[in-house]
Each structure stands twice: as structure tokens, then as C-alpha cells.
């Protein structure tokens, strides 16, 4: 086999292998909790369609141009060892004007879908049952408020599936960004400004979101969840939140005492006299699927770890641990293991 043929075969093999690998990778996409490839609502779907159209377009362009480039490189490699001088072409006005015009025309193809998606994104559909939610970013958690129902919660945004959710977002300290990729695009939460976004989940389910603007030490730990329930379940949840009932018996009763003594300055729990507003509102914590802003499932074990040493899970958080003070100097709580167990029993029982 001659050197040139071998090189061509090698190139074809490499191109084929790359094509297969990319194809395989593309098939594997769409399973992650925050994937852009599996939209779960009309707004996300519109962004997805625009994105996929453009991505297909650029893959096509890449294949054409990369092969053109390869062709030129192989076809015009110097076989004369520097002896020959090629024709000295300095340009071709018609060709240059032609491709410039073609480029401008081709650009229009890439404008159509995204412009349509932009209008879908900016204009929520009319929905008389629309639910309004106000989300406020803090370092490093999300305050959630439902002005229609007078409810406050944190880090988990419960919404009814099949209903338009109108979200207003802002922040108190630095800029955060509220993004739930499967429901659609993101909006920044900025101090001194309010921005709007809308979601609609087609099906009940849990949709993970995350802060998407660098906001300090634990930016990476500022997840949250959007929990879409059926309308009936949602209405039941609203009722439970509006009239939280705290039944604390046994260990939980002791936990409540500890809470009032050590935690109530910063946290609110509906149905008790705890009304602190520095940290997240913990009303009906037992109903939530996750803790710590979505970094751990809501289990007694993870709650124990969180109470003992929040800085290990979320460096820079304002919550002090049992032994370590908080990032801003709030002193350690000095809770004993027994007290932690009681606290966990109390908090997990809030539902």
C-alpha cells in the first residue's frame, strides 16, 4: 500500500471512529436530571427545538467544511518537493462577493427558530389558574413565596403540573440565577431588580434546578428542586402549608425544645413560635424530598450530618455546626448527639 493511500485509509478510519463515538455519545444524552435534551414543558420544548435545529445545522456545516478542508489538504499537498510553483491566484472578486452574500442569506436560517422561541419564552400563555411564585436568592439557598396563598417555604418549589407558573425572582445579597433546564431557560436573580420567567410542567415529577451564576463559596451547592404535583395534590399541599400542625411527642418534643432554644433565631417553622428569617423557612420540612438546598435526599442520616457540620456540605453557609462556627462567625451551636437525634426526630415529623 502506498504512503498516500495508507494515509487516506487512516484518515477515513479516524473519521469513522469519531463519527461513531459522537453518535453513541449523542444517543446516551438526555438522562441526566438537569439535561437540556429532555424538556418537560412547552417553554423548555421550544428552546429545545430551536437548539436541536441549530445543532443539526452546524453539524451539517461542520461535515461539509471539514471535508472540504481535508480534501484541500490531501489534494494540494506538495508532491514536487518544492520544485514547482503553483498558479499564483490572488483572488476572484465574483467568488468572494458570491460567498459573502451566500453567508448572509444562510444566516437567516439560523435566526428563524430562536426568534420564535424567544417570543414563547418571553410571553407566558394565558392561564386563569396560573400560580405565582416569588423566588429570592440568598447565599446559598432559595426563599420561596406564594403570594396568592400566603405561603413561605425554601429550596423546594411545589407547583401543579399542567398549570402555568409565573415566577418572579430577585436576590438579597449577590446575583444568583434560577435555572431548571428541563422546564426551560434561566433567569438571573439580582439584588435591586426583579425578573420574570414562566414554567409549565407537563407531567408530575421532580425537576432539578441549580443556581447558575457564580455567587460565592458554595455556588456549586445551591441546587433546588421543582416538585410538580397533580392539581389535587398541590391544593392539599397548599392547605397543609397554610395550616401547619406541629405534633411533637417523645423525642420530637425534646427536639422542639432544642430547636426553640438554638435554632429559632434564624429559622421559621409555621405552627410554632420560631420566626427567624436569616435561614430557610423549615415549615413542614418532613414533606420535602431533599435538604441543604437539594444536595442530599431528605433522610435522618443526611439531616444529622447537616445539623452537625453544615460547613462540610456547604462551605461558607451562615449556619454554624455543632463544633464549628459559621462562615460569618455565628458561634457553634454545641448541640450534643442526643440533641441532634431529637432535632432530627422533630424536623422529620413536620408534615
Amino acid at each position, binding site marked *: 500500500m502506498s504512503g498516500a493511500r495508507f494515509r487516506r485509509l487512516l484518515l477515513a478510519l479516524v473519521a469513522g471512529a469519531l463519527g461513531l463515538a459522537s453518535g453513541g455519545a449523542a444517543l446516551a444524552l438526555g438522562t441526566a436530571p438537569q439535561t*437540556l435534551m429532555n424538556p418537560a414543558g412547552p417553554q423548555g420544548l421550544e428552546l429545545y427545538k430551536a437548539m436541536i435545529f441549530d445543532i443539526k445545522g452546524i453539524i451539517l456545516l461542520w461535515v461539509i467544511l471539514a471535508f472540504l478542508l481535508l480534501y484541500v489538504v490531501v489534494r494540494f499537498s506538495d508532491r514536487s518537493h518544492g520544485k514547482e510553483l503553483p498558479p499564483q491566484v*490572488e483572488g476572484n472578486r465574483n467568488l*468572494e462577493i458570491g460567498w459573502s452574500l451566500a*453567508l448572509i442569506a444562510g444566516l437567516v436560517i439560523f435566526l428563524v427558530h430562536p426568534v420564535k422561541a424567544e417570543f414563547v419564552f418571553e410571553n407566558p400563555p394565558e392561564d386563569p389558574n396560573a400560580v405565582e411564585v416569588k423566588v429570592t436568592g440568598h447565599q446559598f439557598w432559595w426563599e420561596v413565596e406564594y403570594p396568592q396563598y400566603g405561603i413561605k417555604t425554601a429550596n423546594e418549589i411545589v407547583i401543579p403540573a399542567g398549570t402555568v407558573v409565573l415566577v418572579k425572582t430577585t436576590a438579597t445579597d449577590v446575583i444568583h440565577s434560577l435555572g431548571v433546564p428541563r422546564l426551560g431557560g434561566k433567569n438571573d436573580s439580582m439584588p*435591586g431588580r426583579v425578573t420574570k420567567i414562566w414554567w409549565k410542567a407537563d407531567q408530575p415529577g421532580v425537576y432539578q434546578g441549580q443556581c447558575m451564576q457564580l455567587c460565592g463559596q458554595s455556588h456549586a451547592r445551591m441546587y433546588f428542586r421543582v416538585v410538580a404535583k397533580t392539581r389535587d395534590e398541590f391544593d392539599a399541599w397548599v392547605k397543609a402549608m397554610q395550616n401547619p400542625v406541629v405534633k411533637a411527642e417523645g423525642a420530637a418534643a425534646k427536639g422542639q425544645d432544642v430547636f426553640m432554644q438554638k435554632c429559632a433565631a434564624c429559622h421559621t417553622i409555621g405552627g410554632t413560635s420560631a420566626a427567624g428569617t436569616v435561614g430557610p423557612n423549615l415549615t413542614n420540612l418532613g414533606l420535602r424530598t431533599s435538604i441543604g438546598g437539594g444536595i442530599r435526599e431528605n433522610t435522618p442520616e443526611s439531616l444529622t450530618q447537616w445539623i452537625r457540620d453544615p460547613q462540610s456540605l456547604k462551605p461558607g453557609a451562615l449556619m454554624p455546626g455543632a463544633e464549628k462556627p459559621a462562615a460569618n462567625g455565628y458561634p457553634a451551636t454545641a448541640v450534643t448527639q442526643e440533641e441532634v437525634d431529637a432535632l432530627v426526630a422533630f424536623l422529620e415529623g413536620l408534615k
Partner: protein
Amino acid sequence: MAVIAEKVATPAVRKTRADSGIWGWITSVDHKRVGVLYLAMGILFLVVGGIEALLIRLQLMKPENNIITGGIYNAVLTQHGTVMIFFAATPIIWGIFNYMLPLMIGARDVAFPRLNMFTVWLTLFGGIILNAAWFAGGAADAGWFAYTPLSSSTQFSGIGMDAYLVGVMLAQIGTTLTTINFVVTIFKMRAPGMSVMKMPPMVWKLLGSAALAITAGIPFMVGMLLLMFDRWFGTSFYGPNGGGDVLLWQHLFWLFAHPEVYILALPAFACVDEVLPVMSRKPYFGYTSMVAAVIAISVIAWIVWPHHFYQVGLGAGVNILFATTTKMVSVPTAMFFFNWIATMWGGRIRFNTAMLYSLGFLFLFLVGGLTGLVNASSSTDRQFQNNYWIIGHFHYVAIGGIVFALLAGLVYWYPKMSGRLMNETLGKIGFWTQFIGFNITFFPQFLVGLEGMPRRTYTYVAGQGWELYNLISTVGAFILALGIGIFAINLVGSLFFGKKAPADPWDGHSLEWTIPSPAPAYNFARLALVRGREALWYEKLHGNGKMQAAPEDEGRHGNAVHMPSPSVAPLVTALGLAILGVGGMLRAPLGPIGLLGLLVTIVGILIWVTEDASGYYLAVDKEDEA
């Protein structure tokens, strides 16, 4: 020039270069030494930024890793971005072009030699201050984009942020001045016969870049000044509680930072502009449309900045407007691309290391450019903003595009700078290692982006579907680092063991190949008369292969050439500004350190305006004369 010649009626002719030794380097105003200093500084900071990149990749190798977490990680990512852009890429580019620009336009020096050296010191001191924060309480950690209020309030960020402001401000002053110097040099110092439409393609691209750097740098420096006021004097330009607006900074920053992409990319393209025609043994294809495209890109670059923050609620109309202007950038860029392909079309392509880097650039920049078309949309960017897709996109532009093109330029001009050729075998091994490592590192980042991983996160919990991509990416980063290491070994090793380079090793097209390698201190023994667009190539095709001497040569007296005087003023002035900056970094610009800095600056300026800068005459080498 005429005035100076009168003043020095009987010039003292020095036989050899006067400014030898370390003191010679410090006080030199020779554009070639300025170039070498810039290059050395850029490569040094490239290593610093590269180590930071590897730390980032190590940390992200697996979920909930604990190598660098939280604030330290944020500091590393901030420093990586800041160092790479302001202190690695920028100095390497200004280094190559400070060295090459006068040679390519047939000039003996730049328009403002002392100013030129001043910018080196400013950038160097800026870089030192920025990195010194690591040892003074922690480096900047609000991102290279330094969004307020994270950056503007001392409650959220410490001394590192002050160091960032001082360091980047010094570097920006340097960049503004050096690009002013470029523009004046291009307009005033070209060899006789070189009309603007006969300048090498590279000079046009440098001109576009310099024009952007001068104009776009201003809003950024104003923005940083306001930020300094917020941090040091308690004003509230950016704080919502005091009536400021957090978005103001984003506008001022991106007004500069988007054009910055073209400020860096245009000179990088320029390297490819020079390599491709020479290695294809053809003239550059489509010169006129290239000039139009440079002008177009320099204008459009100014009107795309809001595409960095579609998600702040500007409204559909504004977003669509700027998405459209952003996509328009692809037209001039694609025109460059087609010109490059057409330049090779029908040529006789030689595959040496410089050419391989140029071809690697074409393949990778194609990916970077095309992916940009997707995230240019205001709607789809609501998903991509701050997503790993963007990291993939801009590293394909910044490394695949800018760095590969610059390496092509470095290999290509290395013989002219050092007098020796870089080792071809090692060069090719290094190239392929980098090319493969680069793709393994950054291609998975498109995929992990599509799976929703946000950037600037120091870790991720398991089960997000991101583990495999991150692991592959980390492996790739080390392969890429190995490739860069091989290049560095070649770069340094060839200084000592490389083959001696002839004056014209590549059968070149432009004026720098008419003078000996390495370039003599006076560059051109006789000024050349430019008769064609690619001056030397024209003479090779239509003349006897040698440049004709220009009829008039004001810089030459007898057998000697007029040279600018060495000066210590640039160093003193820059040192003064740096000391003032240290005062600022300690949040007391009007404290004793700051005032000392001001004093030194004034002394520097006094030396500058009062010293004898009439120059001296250097005898031309006998061999060169023939």
C-alpha cells in the same frame, strides 16, 4: 526624524550594540527586546494559568472531590481566567507583534519606543500584583468577569479582588498604550511604497485588533475605576442599597470583554494569514474582501456585548437585536475561513510544524465558531448561559483558535527571533499530542453541557450523569499539558541545539525574511522599496529576488543607522504606578505607600521628559551591508 538629525549633527557612531547585559535589557527600548520580554512574561503566566487549569480538572475528576473546594476553587477559576486572558494570551500576542510588526512593514523601530517598554513593565507589575494576592490573604474569587455585588462589596470579597482591580488596570493601561503605539507605527512608519492596500494581511488584522483594544478598553477601565471607588471609598455605583445598579458593571465589563475576544483572535488569525500563503507557495487569496471583513468584524464586535447576559430581563426585542448582530459576526469570520481555504486551493502545501498548527487551528476554530452560532441565540442561550457547553465553545475558540494560531506564528517566526530553527520532529510530536489532548479535554464538555452541568461549580453530587465526561476531560487535560510541555522543551532547547537559521528559511513572502536571522538591532541596513503586496514574493517572481533599496533613507548617515536612546524612565514610571497600585490593593491608595508610588511616578515622568532622547548611531554590520 529630521529634527533629531539636525540636533545630532556629528553623531557618535557606536560599533556594537550598546545596551548589553541585564541593565541593557532593563533600559532597552528596542521593539525586539520588548517583544521577547512580552513573550517570556506571557509564557511564564501561561504556565501559572495552566497549573490552575489542571487543578480545576483534578478537582472535577470525580463527584464531591476535595482537592480544592469552595472559595479556593473560585479563586483558582478566577485566576485561571484572568491570568490566561490578561497575562498570558495578551502578552504573547503583543510580544509576537511588537517583534514582528516593524520588521513586516520595513521599519527600524516602533513610533514610541519608550512607551513600548513602559507597557511591558506595567503588564509585568500588574501580573505580579494579581498573583501576589495568593500570599497576601487569598486571590480574587469573584470570577474574571467579577460581577457586582460579589466583587464590589468588601463583605463578599477580600484583598484578592483589590489585587485584581489593580493588576488588571495596570495591564489594561499597558494594552491601551501598546496598541496606540501599533496604530501610529502602522500609519507612520511603513516602508516607502507600502500603501495601506499593500500591507501584509497580518498588519490589517493587527490594526483591527488595536483599534478595538483602544476603544473597547475605555468602558472597562472606567468600570474598574468605579469599582475601586465602591470598594475603597464607599461609593455605591453598583450597590442597589445605595441607589446603584448591579447591571451597570455587566454592561461596562462586556463592552470590553466581548471585543477582547476579537482583540486576541484577530492577531492570532494574522499568524495563520502569514503561514498559509508561504507554506502553500501562493499569495494570500482575497486580500480586498479580507480587509472588508476586518473592518466589519471590528465594527460588529462593538455591538454584541449584551449576548453575555440575555437572562437578566432585557426583553425580547433587545435580546433578538443583539442575537442577530452576534450571528452577523459569523459572516466576516467565515469570509476569513473561505479565504484561507482558497489560499491553499491549488497550492503546493508543505507540512511543517507551523503549517500543522495552522491546519489544526482551521479544524478546531471551525468547531468553536460553529458552536457559537448555536449559543448566539438569545433563546437557546437561556439554556447554555453558564453551562459547560459555553466552556467547550470558548476553549475551542481560545485554545483551538487563538493558541494554535499563535503557536503556528511562534514556530514560523522563531528563526527570525532566535536565529535558530525549532526541531521539526519534536514540533510535530508536540502538535499531535496537543491536538488529541485538546479534543479529549474539551469535546466532552459540549456533551456534559447538554446534560446540564453549570460552569464555575467547584463540585457536583453523584448521579447527575456528569461523572464520565468529567473524568475523560481530566485525562485529556493532562495529555494537552504534556503536549504544551513538549512544545516548551522544543522552544527552549532549540535556542541551544536548533539548526542555525538562514535569513529566509521558509521561502517567505514578506520583508522580515530579507534581513538576517536573528534580526540585527537596526533591523534594516537599508530601507526597502516595496513594489508589491507581498513585497519579497513580488521580487522573487518579478525581480531578482532581492529588495530594491529605497531612494531616501533619513535614518541612515554614512555606514551607520539612527537608533533610539536607552531609557530608565519607563521602568521608574511603571514602578511608581505599581507602588500606587499596592497602596490601592491595601485599600489605602492615599496612604503612605500610595503617596510614595505617586512620588515615584512623578520622578519617572520628570526623567522621561527631561532626559536626552536624541538617540545614537549604530554602525551597520559589514556582511549585512552586502
